[in-house]
């Protein structure tokens, strides 16, 4: 007769199932150095471009001269959000490319555990991608983003959350509409950039657009970053606004993702994954 070799798996959340998904992606990363290189390549290029631009603007713009490194800080924080989204979405897409999602969803893995594993992979990918350019910025431009101290942690956390929200949304769309929606994983987040005030204050936007911008968490984060860099003040109000909005969006997009899992079960989409 069958011996009981499995752990009791009735719990609504099990760390070993989350660890399984993380391990699966770490195995893929270990066998593919171009994937690891790609994570750091583009953030480093971006940092170099904006580093030189900063040096030029520092001599020709009184605004930039007031806070050296504001543009490098902005690009690094933007990359946090971009990499967070990409880290989440690509880990989800890996299962689609491998046509493995159906196999995963017939194991005891619960969708919310899958989400937790994807956020963990997003964090790992973001740290791998952002560490080299942030250290290079110190070496090349004497800009130390870690000098922001605890506020950096607040900005990082909020931007990671926003990236996960976009990742959840695009992954849900890919689940529903298949690989035809794959490119959204890369492009959708760019739609947020004009409204995020990455390189300029939100006040530069038309009044009606400012309202839209402030409905998005990144606008509060980048305003908060400028408050620290220009005025040396951590704006708790901006931090709270960003966190509240992120909590709302994260809850909404998690519900959307779970709903799409339900739709996928209803329409038999797990059986026909792929292009």
């Amino acid at each position: 007769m069958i011996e009981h070799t499995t752990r009791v798996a009735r719990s609504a959340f099990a760390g070993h199932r989350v660890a399984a998904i993380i391990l699966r992606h770490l195995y893929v990363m270990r066998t593919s150095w171009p994937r690891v290189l790609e994570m750091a390549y583009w953030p480093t290029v971006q940092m170099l471009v904006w580093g030189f631009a900063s040096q030029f603007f520092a001599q020709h713009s009184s605004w930039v001269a007031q806070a050296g490194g504001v543009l490098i800080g902005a690009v690094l924080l933007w990359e946090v959000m971009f990499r967070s989204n990409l880290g989440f979405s690509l880990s989800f897409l890996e299962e689609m490319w491998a046509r493995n999602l159906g196999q995963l969803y017939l194991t005891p893995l619960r969708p919310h555990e899958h989400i937790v594993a994807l956020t963990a992979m997003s964090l790992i990918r973001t740290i791998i991608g952002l560490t080299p350019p942030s250290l290079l910025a110190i070496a090349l431009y004497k800009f130390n983003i870690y000098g922001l101290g605890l506020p950096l942690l607040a900005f990082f956390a909020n931007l990671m959350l926003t990236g996960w929200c976009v990742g959840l949304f695009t992954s849900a769309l890919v689940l529903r509409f298949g690989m035809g929606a794959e490119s959204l994983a890369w492009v959708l987040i760019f739609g947020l950039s004009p409204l995020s005030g990455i390189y300029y204050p939100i006040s530069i936007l038309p009044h009606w657009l400012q309202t839209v911008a402030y409905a998005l968490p990144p606008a509060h984060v980048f305003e908060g970053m400028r408050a620290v860099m220009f005025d040396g003040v951590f704006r708790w109000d901006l931090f709270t606004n960003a966190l509240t909005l992120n909590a709302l969006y994260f809850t909404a997009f998690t519900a959307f993702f779970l709903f799409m899992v339900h739709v996928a079960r209803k329409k038999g989409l797990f059986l026909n994954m792929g292009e």
Partner: protein
Amino acid sequence: MTDQPAIHVSSLVKDYGEVRAVDGIGFSVAPGAVVGLLGGNGAGKTTTISMLLGLLLPTSGKVEVLGHDMTSGDRFAVLPRMNFASPYVNLPYRLTVFQNLKVYGLLYGIRDIGGRIRGLARDLDLEPFLDTPARKLSSGQKTRVTLAKALLNQPEVLLLDEPTASLDPDTGDFVRTYLQDYAQDSGCAILLASHNMQEVERLCSRIMIMKQGRIHAEGTPAELGRRFGRASLEEVFLDIARAPREVAS
């Protein structure tokens, strides 16, 4: 053994828009029984298995495995006790055989994963290529790895979709013998969808033949032969496949 069936399906219907893929079927599989599900392409076998796995929601009807409703969150209580194998599903191709089995072992919460993998590798002759990436496996090797994945958690209910398709006769026989021994030794209930009549006759104590989403005939291989006046299961299958729908039933 308990009186509770390992698998219980009643009035099961699945519609895809205007198309009815499964049309009000009902059956039970007792613990320890090996039941064959036969049918031509599009008969509704894979759709039925997908609903049993909880991957597909029925339009109406009841699907229970080991007493748990597979349409609701209740399925998570039974998913660790069942598994599935098919040569048509992929494992992540960049991962080695060992890595794939380790990931699935973790998902099923297997204690002593390494020991379990080594045991299955020995039984299924996987040892020579445990460190080979899944993409480099031959179809016979891939089938055995998929079977190892399906047996990792020592399932009480095993669903198999054409487990020996595209295998050479020797490997096919090896897999059939292994499944036969596993079912006898473990008391696992197996539902086997196949096009291979000899395989079904050898492994299954009872057979259901599906056509156009319905179960058109059911019984032991000998009973079906008598009922249709045919000497072999293949002839019974062809009779049903070629008959107009209303006559076949």
